[in-house]
């Protein structure tokens, strides 16, 4: 049973639309879930308020309600709210983390330090806030290093040198590029936190890059040279005879750059049979049958 909207809003049934609107605004401000994060009572109350306001907030809806018509969808609509801001922060969001306050500084000190736009911006000489920005970089750029330009919210452009070998979570510091200071304080620093995008072919393991390369069973049996993609382009790789799925080959110096020396690329081989319907299959099967009459080997036997 839905609650009586007039009761929820605390107005009489004869209240004017303006009175209803004001009552809603006043109560909504008080119980807004983002202004009461984690407070379940406020959240429930706000839901009731939204629903009540939806039913009597406009003259049209109100007359429907007063006539006793009910709109089943109204309640559903009120429930289907978007993600609330506080929900994005409860397990630590970017904004809670990047908040530039000193851990031990008290609340008002931080408030005074706010970017100078507020009315308290003039409180003496204070250093500017540190700002944290996010940046995602391509796998290749992270492995080899690169230079990219980002535009800060202030419109200022920042040349970012991505050091070779950078990993997700690394923060690059830009001295004095953060929030402005007040008075004679030093400006804050800007930090750019890197997220490395994944690559569909390559995976980073420490200083090495792993990739999977299919080989035919003939190449696996007899060995040969096969082209292999590396982060620097294609190279020819010598496959020794007698390899298996899971055999690893090392391509020297094609791994992650940075530091004293470059890592390697580790190629995981995967032996592939011809596809179904391949014209080579019937002859191959025939040959295998003949071979099987004379020889056998059991890979499940202990070596």
């Amino acid at each position, binding site marked *: 049973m839905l609650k009586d909207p007039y009761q929820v809003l605390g107005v009489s049934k004869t209240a004017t639309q303006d009175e209803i609107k004001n009552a809603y*605004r006043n109560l*909504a*401000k008080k119980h*807004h879930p*983002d*202004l009461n*994060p*984690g407070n379940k009572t406020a959240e429930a109350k706000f839901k009731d308020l939204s629903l009540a306001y939806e039913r009597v907030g406009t003259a049209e809806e109100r007359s429907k309600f007063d006539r006793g018509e009910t709109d089943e969808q109204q309640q559903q609509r009120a429930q289907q709210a*978007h*993600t*609330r*801001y*506080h*929900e*994005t*922060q*409860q*397990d*630590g*969001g*970017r*904004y*809670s*983390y*990047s*908040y530039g*306050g000193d*851990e031990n500084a008290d*609340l008002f000190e*931080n*408030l005074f330090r*706010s*970017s100078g*736009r*507020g*009315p308290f911006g003039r409180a003496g000489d204070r250093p500017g806030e540190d*700002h*944290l*920005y*996010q*940046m*995602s970089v391509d796998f290749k750029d992270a492995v080899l290093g690169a230079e*990219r*330009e*980002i*535009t*800060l*919210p*202030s*419109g200022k452009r920042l040349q970012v040198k991505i050091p070779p070998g950078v990993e997700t979570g690394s923060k690059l510091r830009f001295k004095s590029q953060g929030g402005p200071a007040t008075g004679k304080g030093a400006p804050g620093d800007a930090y*750019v936190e890197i997220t490395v995008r994944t690559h569909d072919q390559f995976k980073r393991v420490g200083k090495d890059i792993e990739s999977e390369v299919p080989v035919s069973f003939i190449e696996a049996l007899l060995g040969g040279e096969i082209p292999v993609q590396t982060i620097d382009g294609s190279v020819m790789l010598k496959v020794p005879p007698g390899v298996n799925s899971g055999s690893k080959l090392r391509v020297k110096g094609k791994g992650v750059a940075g530091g004293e020396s470059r890592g390697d690329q580790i190629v995981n081989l995967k032996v592939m049979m011809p596809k179904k319907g391949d014209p080579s299959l019937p002859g191959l099967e025939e040959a295998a049958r003949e071979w099987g009459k004379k020889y056998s080997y059991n890979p499940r036997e202990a070596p």
Partner: protein
Amino acid sequence: MKKAKPCSIKEAAQQCGIAPELILRFISFEWISPADAVSQDLDEEDLARARLISELQHEFGVNDESVSIILNLLDQLHRTRLQLKMTQSRP
């Protein structure tokens, strides 16, 4: 919580039901700093924050200066809650 893929300012504006210019304004005031600093793509967190700001301004009549103060206090509140949670979970 499921994480939606970051989207462009235009898509974000559509999802929040507000004008793209308004989102650009929020960014220029540093109320929102896009998840991706290069492409200016916004993530779920940015979207929710934009929605909150728009609600504060248009439903509650909060002015620009007050938005800065509210966001600042909210950021501190969330950070403090987080610190409290971490302190409590420590053995």
